[in-house]
């Protein structure tokens, strides 16, 4: 069942750059999709359209059958977005405050907010961090806090913009295992990245973007061949002829 649909989406930035060029895509419920592309290929712009942070000059975006342009609030409730820079996403003074920010915006009862905060922190393995200040957390913990902040809003889809950027190996492993667990628990996952190495083995679908267009779309094993021509590095295992292998065990 499709949950997000974009149809003939175009976006041009103020400086004349074509951000999106005739993007038509369908994301199905429960699917784990990786959107790959070089810098400036339009990945983040696409996510912002789906989240109702940008609106198209032509074309449509629908989430759960509703137009994002007509009701961006409803789209944001269904589709949670984790930004590339966790520091600019974290708005709370403590971990609890930050995770509670989303549910508070939904005007939930305090008891329900507390319940959601506890569940979200447990899901990203940050229970016990409630009173810590976010800027005292490590890079990986901040990224997981950003995911918890979105999870607390109980979205059906989780979109993450370059979730592994600036993370060291252990932090990348923790964030990756959190994402895999969330997918196992039934979340639809959309990840944008230019580095396929870490995540591609767990994805069910790979969409490749270049210059604002969708240039390839399909099962990772089918799409990955010759991907370097779009400015994306092939995973080492593929380069060694061993096919797609998981980055972590």
């Amino acid at each position, binding site marked *: 069942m499709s949950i997000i649909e974009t149809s003939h989406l175009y976006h041009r930035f103020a400086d004349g750059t074509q951000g999106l060029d005739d993007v038509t895509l369908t994301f199905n419920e429960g699917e784990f999709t990786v959107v790959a592309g070089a810098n400036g290929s339009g990945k983040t712009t696409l996510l*912002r359209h789906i*989240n*109702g*942070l940008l609106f198209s000059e032509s074309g449509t975006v629908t989430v759960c059958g509703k137009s994002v342009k007509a009701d961006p*609030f409803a789209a*944001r*409730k269904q589709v*949670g*977005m984790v*930004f590339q*820079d966790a*520091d*600019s*996403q974290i*708005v*709370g*003074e*403590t971990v609890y*405050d930050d995770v*509670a*920010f*989303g*549910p*508070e*915006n*939904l*005007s*939930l*009862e*305090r008891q329900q*907010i507390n319940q959601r905060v506890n569940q979200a922190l447990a899901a990203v393995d940050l229970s016990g961090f409630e*009173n810590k*200040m976010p*800027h*005292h957390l490590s890079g990986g913990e901040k990224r997981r806090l950003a995911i918890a*902040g*979105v999870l607390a*809003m109980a979205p059906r889809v989780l979109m993450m913009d370059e979730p592994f950027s600036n993370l060291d190996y252990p932090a990348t492993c923790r964030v990756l295992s959190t994402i895999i667990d969330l997918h196992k628990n039934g979340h639809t996952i959309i990840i944008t990245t230019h580095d396929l190495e870490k995540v591609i083995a767990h994805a069910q679908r790979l969409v490749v973007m270049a210059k604002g267009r969708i240039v390839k779309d399909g099962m990772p094993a089918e799409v990955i061949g010759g991907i370097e021509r779009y400015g994306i590095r092939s995973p080492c295992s593929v380069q060694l002829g061993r096919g797609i292998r998981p980055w972590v065990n």
Partner: protein
Amino acid sequence: MGELTAIGFRPGQSVLHRLDPRTKQMLLMGLSVASMWGNLTFLTLFTVVMMFCVSAAGLRIRRLILEIRYFLFFLCFVFGVRAIAFTGGWTPTLRADAAGEALIVCWRLLLVVIMGLLLMSTTRTADIRAALVWYLKPIPVVDEKMAATMVGLVVRFLPVILFQGAEIADAQRARGIERRRNPLIRLMRFTVPLFRRVFLSADELAAAMQARCYSEQRTLPELSFAWRDGLAIGVGILLSSTVLLP
């Protein structure tokens, strides 16, 4: 960056932690006003109460002094300006009567600042914000929720801006900015990238808040007055009334 925010909220179960944030803000405002007329008796009693509160809140005096060191320099400056006079040319002389008055002024300012730090270290910013909404609500021209959100964001982002500033300064030192003698050029080289980063961060923050359905109709922290709030206000009134003593 931690150093910049050492006097932030510290979780705890002290009397001050359990007071309603509205009570704490009321006491802060009331005692600050009272201290403007505070005499030696008031200031002595106030100091004793503050020392008790600092100890109850679990703040270490040494750490507190370290945190307000720049403010202490400012107080020394205030004392100097008020107490030292230049008579007979360029010779500075300390006037005893003016020194007494200057000491009282500095004492008052110091107590008010300590009160503010106590409020910050024993109250979550979300609670301070909720109390602010409660106080601003009766004022018709002020959008209390917007004002409270702005206060919350300033508290949250001040350390980030200071951190970014320190990072830019370090990066420029690494490329030999000290060799530039013109302070105006140095200032421009520092402020332009800092402002650019701050504006970009602000833009990103606005998008992140929108993505998480930010609205003004939000659930605020639940605030409730208890018997201890009445007791604290009573102590505050008693303390304030000592300004009437000779």
